[in-house]
């Protein structure tokens, strides 16, 4: 069917797809443009001149609360979640290749982690910490809350990766006399490296943007999404858009860097 002429269906769906992309990116570009609003401009178009006023405003402490501190916390938390997600998902993926008691139960627990409403996890962890007498903090309770969201993604991705992974490569390595560690480090790991980088990206971005699970678990100090959520109700200047632009650009940089890393690893492997 690939050699047929373009049908009417193709053009209709192409228009539909274009509209969908516009729907996805249109509003985002609106706040991107409006964040360069002049100093006297408001929350909507038209632009009253072009300036960096609201970006400068962002870094004045009193204007938007604690932007620098919350950004730093979200960044560190995202990195912590990323590392744990990659390691734990990889180990669990390896475990699921064999049969073991409780495998099905653990698998469905991971799926449950995905479907349990986030606010319930937030409330539950909050109550558990309160009853044990621990103070909730972004690096303990919120850290665990984020893992309940990132780990199922990581585990499901690793599950899918190992489903398609032929054991022939490992058998070949073993036949050539490689130990099981050598087989893992020199055969399995390089082959699944791009997927692991993908899991890392998921872990970081899902944590960096997570908000419902942080609500009851962040303790005294806010993460960036909580800070932004607070701003939606009480900030009525384009500084909100400036913050949106900065965090979105940061997310894009992370995504581009990750894709670059995946391409680099993939190309190095095909060259080798």
């Amino acid at each position: 069917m690939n050699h047929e002429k373009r049908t009417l269906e193709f053009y209709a769906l192409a228009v539909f797809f274009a509209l969908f992309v516009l729907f996805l990116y249109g509003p985002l570009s609106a706040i991107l443009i409006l964040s360069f609003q002049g100093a006297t401009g408001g929350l909507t178009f038209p632009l009253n001149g072009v300036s960096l006023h609201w970006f400068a405003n962002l870094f004045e402490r009193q204007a938007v609360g604690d932007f620098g501190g919350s950004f730093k916390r979200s960044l560190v938390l995202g990195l912590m979640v990323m590392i744990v997600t990659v390691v734990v998902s990889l180990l669990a993926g390896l475990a699921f290749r064999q049969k073991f008691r409780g495998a099905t139960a653990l698998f469905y627990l991971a799926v449950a982690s995905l479907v349990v409403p986030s606010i319930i996890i937030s409330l539950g962890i909050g109550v558990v910490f309160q009853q044990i007498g621990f103070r909730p903090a972004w690096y303990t309770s919120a850290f665990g809350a984020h893992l309940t969201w990132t780990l199922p993604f990581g585990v499901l991705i690793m599950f899918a990766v190992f489903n398609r992974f032929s054991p022939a490569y490992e058998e070949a390595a073993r036949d050539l006399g490689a130990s099981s560690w050598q087989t893992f480090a020199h055969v399995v790991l390089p082959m699944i490296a791009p997927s692991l980088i993908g899991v890392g990206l998921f872990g970081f971005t899902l944590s960096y943007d997570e908000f419902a699970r942080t609500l009851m678990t962040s303790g005294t100090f806010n993460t960036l999404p909580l800070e932004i959520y607070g701003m939606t109700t009480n900030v009525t200047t384009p500084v909100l858009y400036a913050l949106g632009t900065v965090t979105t650009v940061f997310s894009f940089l992370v995504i581009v860097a990750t894709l670059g890393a995946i391409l680099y690893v993939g190309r190095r492997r095909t060259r080798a």
Partner: protein
Amino acid sequence: MTVALERPAIAAAKPARRRRFSIGAVAPYLQSAPLALILGAFLLLPIIMIVVVSFWDYDFATMYPDFLTTNYSDVLGSGVTWKTYLNTIKFAFIVWGLTLFIGFWVAYFLAFHIRTTAMQMVLFLVCTVPFLTSNIIRMISWIPVLGRNGLINSTLVHLGLVPKPIEWLLYSEFAVVLAMVHLYTLFMVTPIFNTLMRIDRSLVEAARDAGASGWQVLWNVIIPLAKPGMAIGTIFVVTLAMADFSTVQVMSGGQSASVALMMKNQMSLLQYPAAAANAVVLLVLVLLMVAGILRIVDIRREL
């Protein structure tokens, strides 16, 4: 002859294999332990705790261990709560229908109409990237578009199509549905695209050769085979929409309610047992929905 030669080799290998077997038998438990521990501590334990607390007594500041069913009778006996639950289900249902429609056609276009794999991947990434940016920012980004003086209203007024700005674009149920579709459609596109890509193209050709029209191929071959992807996407969208409170709060401007938003308000009033009772009811509802969908599809096979 060969049999005789192999026999001692097997005999020699046996002890070694037994030793490897014993290490191999422990390995999956060690490898899955971190996952089990984390989910146990931050998923199972909190849910058990919520169930326990939902029977406790409370006043304005603290809660007291007890065994009361009043929290549940408050939840199930209140007309406002019933309305909120119905409202939440209504949002979830509408958003599900829209995301399924949009998600299927987008995935179908990518899988069956884009000819090169490279282009497929690029367009798929274009769809995925917004998923990796902040939900709240993507929600806020509708304000300058839908607002009273927003892009759509000013354009419509400018063109003379409406005499004055349309009020129901922002801070309305319409805005809530629009924002949820905007946030969650990607969860539908990805699994459907995944299953469509795995459909054997020779099935489509066979249907064509047997004289099926384009629509017949779509309706009798592609859609039935895409059902597992649709089911997984449905699980994502329905559970996300049922659990949503921020979209409802921000986009309805406080004029609409959802179960999770009601819970959030109870939590800010420190009425944890009341929130916990709501949590249990919501959890049972969501798990029943998911169990229903899982009867149609085996996720382990679809990954």
